[in-house]
């Protein structure tokens, strides 16, 4: 039977997938066409959402940017007439979309393909085979395999996963815990969410294998409440896995028992930090603790705890199934496998991207992402969210791996990748990320709570053309100390956006401070808008101006009263003839 799939992850739904899905249901009924209509997880092409796939005897057809009104046409053309709806077609049999051909799917291999709420579909694609296999192995052999695979923590820090498991296994405790960190909080990052929405069983299977290998008896998935769909699908997955005997008492008759529960986080960014996360699970305020002791020694409820990120867990079944060697052959010498990135910003084709570790930024941004939107030039890419750093075009040939990025001042982080063009002001960018972090500081340690705020205030001054070069030195000094002396990762990485923008774009800072200009023309206190002779007097700008700063007769050139103007830029945006210039 012909199969139809609608990309039904949060991203697709936001783009209108549920309306499209309903329209499809209706249209199929009206046209009396019998197809197998499915909701699947994220297909990975945010730029083409909503996406509808048709799988018939010819093969797989992908339609992008489908709107409600396109549905009838699609049904009529493809299903009734048997001709593809060419205007909306983005990929078809024999002509695979190059967006995917550069990628290597390990953790996302099922996402967008199976119905995430169906354990059967997961099992059809070798699901839980790895678990069965693992349960017959000696736990030490599993750990050895994970070590050999060269898998490193995908949460950002890149600690070797096998080694961590080994520590946990070797630690003594009355009980051992396992935690899946699904507290993805970086602005612009949605890898974990998509994965949980698209293939929850892969994560679950990895977790159960990890629990068996390390001897954990109880696990928690710490997931933010802002991910309702992920939570719902996880719950379904856990329920089904229990029914199938993959979870609970005496799993698959192996004698090994393990249960897992979901803990909803309230959305504090700092709870992505493992000690804060564990405090939150224990019902305490999400505040980090000094390490050591590390969670592997004394974690949840004071017991040895194996805490790994969603994506890390999802790699495990693949490694068990395909072998460590196969896994480590992907990626670099220091780091095996792939990494999922959330490619966003001023890029032509944004979306979820999975590539072998070591792929260069250029390949990701220019080949997969097809470069910068419009005619602008690439300026920088922010890696690793607010904890990461901004790299300029000189670094485009950088292979994306833990060490190289750290050396360049950025971090791999959990995989956020935001592309910026010449219209982005780097002082403003640093300010944006810092503002996020300082608001999210748990308030515990001085450098993070007060330091990041003071740092932000200095940036705010710069963006107003205030401050001196001495202040810039002070800023550097403070950023350096916040990085070195903060208690947890949040504070230790908070100055990264500032430090990297300073490292690669210091001239922009200097321009703000010494010349009181914003080269990218973004900082509102440093720009003015003028109406040029091109003005046709359409009055649009005057009507839209929120502070009534624009005057002029209908049909003649308008004028902006600079005293009143708040440089919000509305006039610039609405002018139909581009007669508003920014200076």
């Amino acid at each position, binding site marked *: 039977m012909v199969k139809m799939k609608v990309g039904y992850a949060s991203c697709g739904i936001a783009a209108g997938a549920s309306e499209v899905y309903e329209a499809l249901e209706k249209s199929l009924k009206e046209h009396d066409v019998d197809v197998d209509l499915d909701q699947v997880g994220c297909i990975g092409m945010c730029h083409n959402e909503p996406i509808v796939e048709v799988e018939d005897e010819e093969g797989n057809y992908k339609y992008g940017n489908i709107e409600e009104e396109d549905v009838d046409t699609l049904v009529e053309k493809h299903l009734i007439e048997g001709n593809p709806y060419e205007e909306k077609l983005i990929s078809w049999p024999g002509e695979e979309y190059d967006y995917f051909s550069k990628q290597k799917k390990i953790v996302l291999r099922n996402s967008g393909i199976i119905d995430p709420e169906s354990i059967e579909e997961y099992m059809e694609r070798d699901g839980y085979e790895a678990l069965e296999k693992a349960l017959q192995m000696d736990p030490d052999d599993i750990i050895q395999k994970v070590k050999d695979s060269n898998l490193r923590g995908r949460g950002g820090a890149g600690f070797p996963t096998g080694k961590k498991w080994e520590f946990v296994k070797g630690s003594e405790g009355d009980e051992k815990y396992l935690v899946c960190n699904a507290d993805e909080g970086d602005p612009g990052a949605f890898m974990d969410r998509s994965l949980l929405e698209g293939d929850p069983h892969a994560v679950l299977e990895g977790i159960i294998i990890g629990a068996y290998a390390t001897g954990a008896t109880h696990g928690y998935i710490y997931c933010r409440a802002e991910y309702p769909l992920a939570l719902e699908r996880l719950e379904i997955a856990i329920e089904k896995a229990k029914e199938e005997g993959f979870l609970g008492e005496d799993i698959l008759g192996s004698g090994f028992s393990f249960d897992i529960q979901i803990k909803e986080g309230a959305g504090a960014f700092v709870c992505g930090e493992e000690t804060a996360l564990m405090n939150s699970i224990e019902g305490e305020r999400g505040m980090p603790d000094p390490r050591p002791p590390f969670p592997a020694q004394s974690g949840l409820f004071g017991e040895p705890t194996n805490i790994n990120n969603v994506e890390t867990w999802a790699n495990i079944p693949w490694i068990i199934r395909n072998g460590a060697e196969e896994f480590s052959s992907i990626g670099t010498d220091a780091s095996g496998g792939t990494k999922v990135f959330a490619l966003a910003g001023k890029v032509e084709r944004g979306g979820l991207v999975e590539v072998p570790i070591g792929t260069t930024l250029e390949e990701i941004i220019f080949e997969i992402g097809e470069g910068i939107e419009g005619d602008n030039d690439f300026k920088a890419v922010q890696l690793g969210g607010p904890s990461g750093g901004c790299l300029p075009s000189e670094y485009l040939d950088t292979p994306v791996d833990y060490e190289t990025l750290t050396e360049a001042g950025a971090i791999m982080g959990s995989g956020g990748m935001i592309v910026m063009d010449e219209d982005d002001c780097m002082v403003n960018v640093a300010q944006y990320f810092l503002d996020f972090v300082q608001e999210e500081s748990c308030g515990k340690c001085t450098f993070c709570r*007060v330091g990041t705020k003071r740092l932000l205030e200095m940036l705010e001054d710069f963006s107003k053309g205030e401050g001196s070069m001495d202040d810039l030195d002070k800023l550097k000094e403070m950023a350096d100390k916040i990085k070195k002396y903060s208690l947890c990762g949040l504070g230790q990485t908070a100055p990264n956006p500032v430090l990297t923008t300073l490292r690669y774009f210091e001239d922009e800072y200097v321009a703000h401070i010494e010349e009181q200009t914003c080269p990218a023309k973004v900082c509102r206190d440093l720009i003015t808008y003028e109406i040029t002779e091109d003005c046709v007097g359409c009055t649009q700008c005057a009507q839209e101006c929120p502070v009534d700063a624009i005057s002029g007769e209908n049909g003649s050139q308008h004028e902006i009263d600079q005293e009143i103007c708040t440089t919000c830029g509305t006039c610039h945006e609405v002018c139909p003839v581009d007669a508003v210039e920014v200076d």
Partner: protein
Amino acid sequence: MGEKITITIDGEEYETEPGKYVLDVCKENDIFVPNLCEIDYIDEPFGGCRLCLAEIETERGKEVTTSCDTPVQDGMKVTTDTEEVEKGRKMALELLLSEHTGDCVAPCSLKCPASMDCQGYLAHIANGRPSEATKLVKESSPLAISLGRACFAPCEDGCRRELVEEVISIRQLKMYAAEKDMEEGPWTPEISESTGKEVAVVGGGPAGLTAAYYLRLEGHDVKIFDMMPELGGMMRYGIPNYRLPNELLDKEIEWILDLGIEVETEVEMGEDFALEELRDDYDAVFVGTGAWESWIIPIDGKELPGVMGGIDFLVDDRLGKDIELGEKVVVVGCGNTAMDVARTAVRKDKDVTVAYRRTEQQAPANEEEIEEAKEEGVNFEFLLSPKEILGSEGDGIDKVKCSRMELGEPDESGRPKPVEVPGESSEIEADSVILAIGQQPDLEVLEEQGLEQEDRTLGSNDKFQTNYEDVFTAGDASMGASSIVESTGQAREAAYALDAYLKGELEDYDIPDDFEMPYGYVHQAKVTEDDFADYTDKPRREMPTRSPEERIEDFEPIELGFSDEDAEADAERCLECGCLDRYDCLLREYAEKLGAEQDEYKGDKYQYDVDESHQRVVREPDKCILCGSCVRATEEVHGEGTVQFVERGLKTVVQPAFGDPLSEVDSELIGDLAEACPTGAFEERIKDTKPGPHETVKAGETHCVGCGLTCPAEIRAINGRPVMVKSVEDPVYEGHLCDIGKFDTMVEGDRPSYDEEKFEEAGDILDGADADILISQSVSIEEVEAVENLAEKVGGKLVIPGDIEKSNVDAEELLSSDQIFVEDGVYDVSPIFKSFVNRAKEDGAEIVKSFEELEDGVAIITEDSSKCPDRRVVAHEGANAEGLVDIGSDKLEDSSEVVIVYGREVENVPEDKKIFQLTSEKNEVSESADVVIPLRSWLEKKGSVINSFGEKVNLTPVKATVYPTNEEIIGKIMETF
């Protein structure tokens, strides 16, 4: 344990055990590492303040990191004072300071050139203790009366009460306190043991007297040499009697000299002795010769007869010299001396005009002085600058020719400069002209004595040392003409420098910050009227004064003095701007030590309301540095904090649940919050109307008798009065004390009056009557014996409340027990029991929910428990319940006519019998009792009790008393029938 490892700190090796943190080892060995968030009795480091940075080197490398959370490792090398470490600590502290808002010290004190603790002495006055107020003043200057009468009161310029309605009468209140103290027999300081050193003080004015006083207190022999017939300097000869009466000045000087200071008057340096001689004869010399020369402006006619200097006029008048003063007197200048001159002349029935080249607002004289001068009939001509004195040698002065002035651009002093209005002049008729525009030291004399000058004064370095290392100076000689308060303040510091010189410690001697930059740190943002919008207007109490008509008739004092009631009421208006934590704020201590600047990092601060709802603890979130110690300390006892962190980022704040006011928080650990707080975010205030704050001193250590736990407690006192109870670090009790101990049991209440007649009344009641004795559980073993004798004599029963079980498990056994059951009500007796339970739990004890589940554990039960398990700790309500168990019975005899109630915590006193009460504190029973005789309180008596762990605990008196001992009281009662 057993295993030992060695770490090196700053080059020294230290042996320690694994499991400790670097900071622990530093603390144990007194190595300075600043830290604000570590609590000794809590093992887990918090790691919040980030102040404890140190360079730590292991085989993995060297890094600067926090020492509180770095576990020690064998062979580790720690350096606590590298440049990087110091920079990091300083930045952490400066960041903390940038979000900390408040005033370490009140603005009145900051304005005072002598750094007086105005807020402190106002508090003593408000609390009805003028003598303690005066003692406090005298820590800054011995001239309390003189300053009270004649200070120009810059403190009042700083007073924020003006933002409510009017400033506090700070000067007049000092006057009230000082004179009252003098009347009632002045407070007198103790003099340190004699050092055998001798100091000559040249000049007996404000500077000389002050220096002599503080040098004498340090145990040096002091002799004052003065050129005038009487001591006092400008206070006597420059200030008229109506402002500073001779009689009071004499008393003040006499009080100073009575400390054993020698005096020789009418001897002048350069005339009667040379500085060189003093240097030979004495170990050091203090030169406080003042500024006795009037400045004479270069004006035509200044040599005419009838022209004189202001200070010359005042001195001559004081000396009773015959001054030829014409009917019309023109006084040039408008400072305080000019006012003294003008008002003196008015009192000689002259027509007086003050000519001043600036405006009234710019005049240096006190507003009050100008106002009073006007009331007395002095004419003022502002914006008039004398240019020439017209007259002749033979006929004397005719007029003063003046130029009309107007205000121009600001000059160096920031005041608009008066400039001449071209062509406009004016003439004032005059017979005498007194130039009161300034004074200076007699530089010629100083120079002859070999002393070097600097800016027309006697030069000295920053330690008040002149070009001779053994000669120090202060006051007008060193500053030029100034005020009493400036002279006395500077002289005090000079005296301490001189003292350091005599002790050979001058090199290391730092002039305290509180003098150079008064008290270091002020953090209050700009304060406006809006900040005090909630205050009710309470206008200042007016000082009664004589009417202008009356007072120009003589030189008698104008101010008549406050009544006690007015003084207390006015002092009560004080807004208490200065921080309650002034004397033990760790943040301030570190800031001074590390040289941290409060304004290095500026930016947003969040402002919260001050919570003063609790009687004894004030919460000021603006001062919180988020160290979390309050949360963790109370959490350690309760299992959850009495307060919690809320919000994120810089907005993070620690508060009780739902932001409730402290008074509504259901916790007996409010005091613990203040004890844990290293700065002023939770502050303990003493019970008085005004808390001061005052520096408290440890009066002694004893135990709380609030319940059977008998937690160790430190009693702190102000001037010998116990005012505060603090917890004591102890291996068993750790460092907690509940509010029952801190604020209730161990704080003395109102004692019944002692009256010999009461004994006879008691005897009348007891004689021949049947009497039982109701005794409190909180009575010492020794007292019980005496009370037993009494019981025997009256033939009655000794009754203790309730059936008291004995504990049979000690603290150690409880802490190491495997299972614990806690009966309901135990934590009401004392929340500190929870601390024991939590610690046992941490060490693995299982907490069970019923007696039945208890297999081999310990039960903590209440006194009226229905069940008495084998192994138990009884939460007794009284400190000596265990000591009483064997002697008591539980019922009064119906037949007894009289009940003797012994001890303050006795309940269920029958109403139908005659009551004879013995108590250290008045209570409800006292109101209806037939006879009440006072006892010594727990702070005064010696004795022992047996606590809830069956341990005998000795209580130590911490307060001196004149009362008989309680055993003596009982003995005395027994003699009366």
